[in-house]
């Protein structure tokens, strides 16, 4: 009964296509910054708006250097007003621009939810396809950076829940470039999630030229036979760590899926994997109730029931209002390789 959304999936090859052969090693934040620059060079309709995105280059410096190259008309330091930022971006999109709005932290996106969920996401449908709202909303999210309750949140589930908006969360610099490209070229609003802890800690090869990672396609990070781990964002890296340890310790063969796109969700890749391994651990650092982990777990339980050899296990943050500031409390809250490892071992033993 729950739509799988497959029809919105781009028919592009799975792990991104580069046109032009070169690649460069860069950080996650560099990948985003250079992609923004390249897209703005390629299409003058692309504009950026948000708080401190101008001379400051963003509080994380994701937009560094852009106002110098593209000017104040295309890189707009807005007033401190998130609903206004998104509402204005919607009007821009309607009148021929391709706005990329930055919300400074996901914790501050709440006051813009009306404009995002009721307006941007529903404009195409309510107008019977007469209007559309091609725009990207870039949002740093996630925890583990001593951000406390209001600089650590991961509330992507609310967007996945709502029809009409797509949601992506790259875990590598290459996917950051590829998915950002696809998001900017998509016909609908796309929420582009940037894990703030990854900005400078994650590096990787990024293809040069026009590189696309299709929206709606998961990435198989590593193949395995005994259990599948499904996750996204920073938890891809924590899961990799956990898998390394558990594999070494138990000899288990573990498959890891990086969802990349939370909506559309690549149900096919998930189900194929679980049908092969018979077991799944679904990991999110967000609060667990009604989360993306709940959705993936429910989907597996519903569509791969006959193949399951153990309970689909969720590893998710507890029902606590995001991590506290103090390190021991933050650590207790935050999902990490250790907690993922516990769940993996338990499921392998089932």
């Amino acid at each position, binding site marked *: 009964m729950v*739509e799988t959304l497959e*029809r*919105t*999936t*781009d*028919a592009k090859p799975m792990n991104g296509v580069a046109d032009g052969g070169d690649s460069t090693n860069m950080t996650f934040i560099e990948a985003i910054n250079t992609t923004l620059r390249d897209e703005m060079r390629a299409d003058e309709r692309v*504009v950026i708006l948000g708080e401190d995105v101008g001379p400051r280059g963003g509080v994380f410096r994701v937009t560094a250097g852009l106002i110098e190259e593209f000017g104040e*008309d*295309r890189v707009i330091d*807005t*007033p401190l*007003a998130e*609903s*206004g930022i*998104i*509402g*204005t*971006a*919607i*009007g*821009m*999109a*309607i*009148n*021929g*621009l391709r*706005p990329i709005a930055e919300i400074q932290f996901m914790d501050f996106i709440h*006051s813009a939810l*009306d*404009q995002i969920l*009721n*307006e941007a996401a*529903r*404009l*195409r*449908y*309510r*107008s*019977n*396809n*007469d*209007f*559309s709202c091609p725009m990207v909303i870039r949002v740093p999210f996630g925890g583990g950076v001593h951000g406390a309750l209001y600089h650590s949140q991961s509330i992507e589930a609310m967007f996945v829940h709502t*029809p*009409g908006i*797509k949601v992506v969360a790259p875990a590598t610099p290459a996917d950051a470039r590829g998915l950002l490209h696809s998001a900017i070229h*998509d*016909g*609908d609003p796309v929420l582009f999630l940037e894990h703030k802890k990854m900005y400078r800690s994650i590096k990787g090869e990024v293809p040069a030229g026009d590189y696309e990672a299709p929206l709606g396609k998961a990435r198989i990070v590593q193949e395995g036979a005994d259990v599948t781990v499904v996750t996204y964002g920073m938890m891809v890296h924590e899961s990799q760590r956990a898998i390394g340890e558990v594999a070494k310790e138990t000899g288990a063969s573990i498959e890891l899926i990086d969802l990349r796109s939370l909506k559309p969700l690549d149900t096919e890749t998930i189900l194929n994997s679980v049908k092969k391994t018979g077991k799944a651990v679904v990991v999110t650092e967000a609060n667990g109730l009604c989360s993306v982990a709940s959705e993936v777990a429910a989907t597996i339980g519903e569509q791969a029931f006959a193949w399951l050899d153990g309970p689909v296990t969720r590893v998710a943050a507890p029902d606590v209002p995001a991590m506290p500031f103090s390190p021991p409390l933050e650590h207790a809250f935050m999902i990490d390789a250790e907690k993922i490892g516990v769940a993996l071992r338990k499921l392998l033993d089932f």
Partner: protein
Amino acid sequence: MATETTGAADKAVQRAFAGKTTTENGSSSIHLPLEHVDVGGGALSATVAPPSEGDAGLDHDTLREMYEYVALARALDERMWQLNRAGKAAFIVSGQGHEGAQVGAAFALERGKDFLLPYYRDLAFSLAFGLTAENVMMAALARADDPTSGGRQMPGHYGSRKFNIISGSSPVSTQVPHATGTAYAAKVRGTGQVSITCFGEGGASKGDVHEACNFAGIHKLPVIFFCENNRYAISVPIERQMAIDNVADRAVGYGFPGVIVDGTDVLAVYQVVKDAADRARRGEGPTLVEAKLYRFQPHTSDDDDRAYRDPEEVKAWRDHDPLLRFAQRLLDVGAVDEDSLAGIKDKVRSDVDAATDVAEAAPLPDSATFDHHVYAAQ
């Protein structure tokens, strides 16, 4: 009939308000229509537009065309109520009383080029921007070929890419920042387009209006914020909506002019919006226009306004019906005589009849299409 309450009367509502009688405990009041325009007794930072005179420099053809839109909107509105009472239209939201201001504003703009970001009362505005009686009836009856939403939206939520009418939602005032955005795009793209967005005095209380006006002021955007102040937000009277008398008095807080105008004086509104559009096109930025007017009908077909306003008040305002005032003006300036006026009425009635017939005969949407257009087709 405002309900008597036992609670302590809030002194805040007792301030002097010209033209309003306040009962002993201050909680019951009647809003009387005023000759020219009521701006209250408080500090005034907005400008008050003068009443219009004569033909306002418009030729008779244009005046007649304007009148026809006012009359068509009224007739369509009345027909929709009939269809609702007959069980044929599930829901109706009425613009009666607002038509004059809307048509005056629409004619001050470059239709086909400028953007309208309406709210649910903007039937007359939408007609003047290009929707036909048939389009409107198709929407009212939620037919498959309703060009405003394919029967998806509730009636009153008009939209049309063809006519630059941006499809709005029901949450009030969300369209206001969209207008700031369309105006920003017009400015940087150099299209010369003006955007106008409409909302009620209730809607003016939403944070989005503040955020949108502030942004537009900073960038001196070509946008007109058009407040249709009818003194009620469903049942909530203006005294419970704000402590001031005029929404336009807020414009000063965003660095652009506020103008108050008698919203039952079609040509006065025309002139004010024309000035605002000229300003916008000259790159001088936004204007907040507040049209003082009244809604003659309950909020919607689901409402019963006797719970919150005195029928005497409604009656008093009906004497300032923009339709009647405008007809009289056309007679006064010689743009019509009684015969040609009757001719327009006949034409309007037959338009409405034809539109109703077509819409009633038109098919409902195919249920299989209910999940189309959530996302762009691949």
